[in-house]
């Protein structure tokens, strides 16, 4: 029942919120709902650890071969947990932000959460697609209604881009469905089918799926919606977008792409990995030159996700584990980063790096938090990102599906050097040096901010020192994915 | 070549020529008159095919009623002068060329149809007689017949709706 609760709680409370009148109760209710989700996800965690099967299936659209089938496996558990963790964090971090029509705002946020949770637990391709869209559509309204001047253009670009991706994916899903002997959308049927499809077919389907996922991640060169949107939308929305939503793409690659069309993934792996690696360097280089904090973080996110993309297609067990843990870690880090950026903007009234300086004198606590989060972003050991990136690099390096593994590793590695450059640059210019007009009257963090940032820092360190707590969860599923996408046995057959 | 054959050729040429004249005439009234000539020619062809009922109906309904209506309207509008502005040359040329091509293509395609050995027998047969047709019409085709009455009703309503002068008191017509 837990997977259903994951979806139903935010969905119901989201719909209920549309009927709220005042801001205060809406805000509290949203927080309350998200906390309940958190509690449930922790319950789910314990249940999962004790070996219970968290699944639920009921007939729905049966005549289409689809059913409402949800299951929380290791990967789903990690992602649900991160969704459940990030929502309360986001709500608390932006507790003081004022919104027009706050009830709608919170309602849409929770609907997005429902969609995200659904994506992570769906075990039926059609259901997966439903949730995929359910996550995006409230997002469209959120981004269009709350944000910067040019938000509408940015949002429509984002939406058409992702919608195009998702409908192409839909074609892929239907195509696979039509090929399954029993006409079913279930993931098992797809996995089974994947073993029998010809290469040419796989190639089609691969690109249909991959485009959708690549746009969502986003992987270079499909990323252009992202910096604009992050820049334009409100900070809490950006947090959801970058913290959780981009993981949909990564997640989907692991669950729906590799195991299903493994031969095509293998054949196109080099191309995709090249794209991802170019993206790492490209985004990092651009991030060097960004003056707007949000844009900088946006590009850094592209680089980080690029690394995940490259790892996925190198198809190694360690790499998969790394990606899964990094999904969680990246979410924590980037949410932390956005919170910091949001606070800077609120305190100083600007996001321009060139207009900031010496903030550490006025806001020492913020400076320390920013430093820790920034260092986590550059994957310093004993922070969470190190674990993920270390494993991912290891995965890329030890990949047996590509012969360019060393080149990819080195190039991606240059990305982490560049990351250090731009993050430190940013910290130096924003926090150190002399005070400027904008920072002269800034204040330090308040209680809610301290709380959220402390939670984030604790998570960063916890996951950096004892990542095994999460790695245990994803062991089994990583093996499953690897064995399903193992092409060596298939290649000998063909 | 018997008389019927000769008649067929004469009537065919007449029909085609009249059709061309309908299209070519500057004055609408002449067009109508040429059109009536086509109807007569076609009725003649019907007769050759022993479709007497249709031949008569063609003359009565088409040439007699419909064409008179046309003439009436033309006269009413005082259009019996060749004052029609010409379409531009290019358009005319394109129309003629594409029409010709269409004919060419269809003829070329259909000339090898497997029915090419079949004939439409002339001068014999009695299915075109009113008795046979009437029986079929009121036995097998009663539904379509009733439907066509509905069709006429709707045409009638239409004529009323469109033709009846609306009193100017109705100012709320339309959205603009």
């Amino acid at each position, binding site marked *: 029942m837990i997977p259903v609760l994951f979806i139903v709680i935010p969905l119901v409370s989201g719909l209920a919120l549309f009927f709220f009148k005042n801001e205060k109760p809406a805000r509290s209710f949203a927080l309350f709902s998200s906390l309940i989700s958190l509690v449930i996800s922790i319950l789910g965690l314990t249940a999962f650890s004790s070996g219970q099967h968290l699944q639920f299936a009921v007939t729905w659209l049966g005549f289409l071969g689809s059913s409402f089938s949800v299951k929380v496996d290791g990967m789903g558990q990690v992602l649900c947990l991160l969704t459940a963790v990030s929502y309360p964090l986001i709500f608390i971090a932006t507790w003081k932000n004022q919104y027009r029509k706050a009830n709608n705002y919170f309602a849409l946020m929770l609907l997005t959460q429902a969609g995200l949770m659904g994506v992570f637990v769906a075990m039926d391709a059609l259901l997966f697609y439903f949730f995929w869209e359910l996550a995006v559509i409230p997002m469209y309204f959120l981004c269009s209604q709350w944000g910067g001047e040019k938000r509408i253009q940015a949002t429509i670009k984002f939406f058409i881009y992702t919608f195009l991706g998702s409908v192409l994916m839909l074609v892929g899903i239907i195509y696979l469905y039509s090929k399954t002997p029993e006409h079913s959308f279930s993931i098992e049927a797809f996995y089974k089918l994947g073993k029998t499809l010809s290469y040419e077919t796989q190639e089609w389907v691969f690109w249909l799926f991959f485009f959708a996922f690549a746009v969502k991640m986003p992987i270079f*060169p499909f*990323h*252009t919606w992202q910096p604009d949107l992050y820049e334009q939308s409100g900070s809490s929305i950006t947090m959801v977008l970058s913290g959780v939503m981009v993981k949909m793409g990564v997640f989907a690659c692991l669950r729906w792409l590799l195991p299903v069309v493994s031969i095509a993934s293998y054949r196109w792996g080099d191309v995709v990995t090249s794209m991802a690696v170019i993206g790492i360097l*490209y985004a990092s*280089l*651009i*991030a*060097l*030159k960004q003056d707007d904090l949000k844009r900088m973080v946006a590009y850094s996110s592209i680089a980080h996700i690029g690394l995940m993309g490259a790892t996925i297609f190198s198809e190694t*067990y*360690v790499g998969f*584990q*790394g990606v899964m843990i990094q999904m969680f870690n990246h979410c924590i880090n980037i949410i932390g980063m956005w919170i910091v950026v949001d606070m800077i903007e609120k305190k100083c009234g600007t996001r321009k790096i060139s207009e900031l300086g*010496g903030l*550490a004198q006025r806001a*020492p606590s913020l400076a320390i938090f920013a430093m820790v989060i920034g*260092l986590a972003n*550059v994957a*310093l*050991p*004993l922070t969470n990102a*190190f*674990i993920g990136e*270390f*494993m991912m690099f*290891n995965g890329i*390096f*030890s990949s047996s599906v590509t012969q360019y593994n*060393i080149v990819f*590793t*080195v190039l991606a*590695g*240059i990305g*982490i*050097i560049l990351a*250090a*450059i731009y993050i*430190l640059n940013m910290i*130096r210019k924003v*926090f*150190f*040096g*002399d005070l400027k007009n904008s920072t002269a009257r800034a204040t330090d963090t308040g209680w809610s901010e301290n709380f959220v940032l402390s939670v984030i820092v604790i998570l960063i360190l916890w996951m950096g*020192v*004892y*990542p*095994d707590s999460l*790695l245990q969860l994803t*062991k089994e599923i*990583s*093996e499953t994915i690897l064995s399903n996408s193992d092409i060596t046995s298939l290649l000998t057959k063909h | 070549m018997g008389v019927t054959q000769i008649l067929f050729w004469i009537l065919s040429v007449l029909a085609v020529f009249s059709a061309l004249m309908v299209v070519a005439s500057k004055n609408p009234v002449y067009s109508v008159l040429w059109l009536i000539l086509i109807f007569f020619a076609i009725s003649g062809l019907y007769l050759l095919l022993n479709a007497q009922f249709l031949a008569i109906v063609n003359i009565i309904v088409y040439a007699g009623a419909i064409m008179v209506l046309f003439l009436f309207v033309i006269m009413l509008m005082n259009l019996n002068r060749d004052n029609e502005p010409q*379409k531009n040359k290019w*358009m005319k040329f394109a*129309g003629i060329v*594409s*029409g010709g091509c*269409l004919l060419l*293509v269809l003829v*070329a*395609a259909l000339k090898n149809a497997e029915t090419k050995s079949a004939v439409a027998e002339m001068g014999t047969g009695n299915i075109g007689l009113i008795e046979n047709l009437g029986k079929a019409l009121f036995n097998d085709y009663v539904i379509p017949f009733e439907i066509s009455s509905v069709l006429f009703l709707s045409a009638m309503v239409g004529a009323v709706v469109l033709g009846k002068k609306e009193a100017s008191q109705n100012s709320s017509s339309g959205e603009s």
Partner: protein
Amino acid sequence: MQNALQLAWLVPFFPLLGFLITGLFRRQLSKTMIAIVGNAVVFASLLVSVWIFVQVKDGNSYVAEYFNFISAGSLKIPFALQIDALSSLFLLIVTGVSFIIHFYSVFYMKEESREHYGRFFSYMNLFVFSMLLLVMGANFVIMFIGWEGVGLCSYLLIGYWFKNKEYNKAADKAFIMNRIGDLGFLIAMFWILSKTGSFDFAVVFSKASALSTTDVTIITLLLFIGATGKSAQIPLYTWLPDAMAGPTPVSALIHAATMVTAGVYMIARSNVLYSLAPLSQYIIAIVGLATAILAATVALKQNDIKKVLAYSTVSQLGYMFLGLGVGAYSAGVFHVMTHAFFKALLFLAAGSVIHAMSGEQDIRKMGGLRGKLKTTYFTFLVGCIAISGIPPFSGFFSKDAILLSTYEHNKILYVIAIFGTLLTAFYMFRLLFLTFNGNFRGTDEQHHHLHESKAGITLPLIVLAILSFVGGFADIPEIFGKGGNRLTEFLAPVIPLSHGASVSHSTEMMLMFIPAVLVLLVIVYAWYRFKNYRPSEEKGLGKILENKWYVDEFYDKIFVKPLYQLGSFLNKTFERSVVDGLVNGVGKLVNYGSRQIRLLQSGQIGSYILLMVLSMLFVFIIQFFLRK
């Protein structure tokens, strides 16, 4: 007493505790408390280290696994610490020197406000923690954690005075250059893993002989890239002189005594691998020597007291690498130890000078301080003698060990290395003479304030001076009598004794004393040259040297600027017009198409029917004549 070593975790634990206490409660605790905590934890570590050292000396070694750090399938990386001869020695050096420097800092930093005082000590403690982790790690990953940790701490400490932009830039530079090296380290680790299936030192080294020469060479070279970053070797050395931006104790701690020796430690630790890769060794020797000479030449013309010391550090590190490169691992480690003593001494003494000069660092504006700063002068003199390699001071023995091995290895390198030691002597005594001899060249006000530092500052100097003097006897060559080479023997479990062709005793004696004599001559020359120093504009080679061979500018032109230009190009041009332009272009095209297709809807029946007829024609022609 195997079990006794289980307490090893206490060594890094204490500084970590200190970091947490001083860091989190820096606003609550008084300065005294902070100082006490900050020192006590390091002292506690020192005590445990001594105890461990004693244990190890009895032949114990120990590997402790605490918990699974990362485990993924066959990849198991435990959080494990290792105690053996090498690490116990380093523990001793690190905790010992650190404690002295901590003690020194208590007084040196006393003018800082409480909050920043706490911050300083927390950074320092964190640094010690990282360094200990680096040294004690039982596998490459734990070592790497410490490795990056010290990089972080150096970043934090260099940028300690965060209001100054230049200092912060220096901090960034340190971190980034370290990062470049770290990438090499990281890839080396992956390579090791893919070839041996483990990160554990024990496993890796036991499987090393099974590796192909290519693999070992690549691995060792990659590790060496890591070392060049951390230990400031060509080409990644430029951060170290800039790192002098931090407070002087920091310079002493990080950039002289401990952190920069991490590279040496790492290579010494991996000596099994290096021994299998002669090419790598050769490259290391060349690079080390080149660094030694290059840095020495630059040091000749530097006028900032700390910069001279910084370049001398780079130069000395070059010697260590030379030693490693020629296979004299224990000599390298020995030099690390002696260097830690005298370089810490020199830096702290320099700090005392700077303190006395009210923050002035330019030696052209000093002179004649000998009278006012007696203790400082004498200790500084000890440091200079030690670094110059005059017997029987510590530097003599350690440097001699390296030079001897070099001689055995390659005569040309040996000659160049000797030349380097002469340069060392020259610039060190130039520094000494310019600072302490001659006339005072500063302002009257500075002159007025000149005073010897308090006991809290001079006491560490004296302790270090003693160590600099006696340190060399730890590994005194056997030719001076029995009981020599004790350090080498102590390290033997980790670094196998080399049984190469050794030189005869007479040659060895000669090789020891000829350089010593030459050094003395150079010192005399320096005395003549600088006893009456007048600042003058540098010309020709001097100018180039003063500007450090323009290496920074060169790097700036070749790497930094193009990088930013590329970023700028990608941001302004490529992203906007190509990537985004493509997407927007599609949008524009659709819009344009919309306008054009709209024109089909002309409103004229004739054209509609014409279009329909043309479509019909099209369909008929294809259907009847072209489709089969």
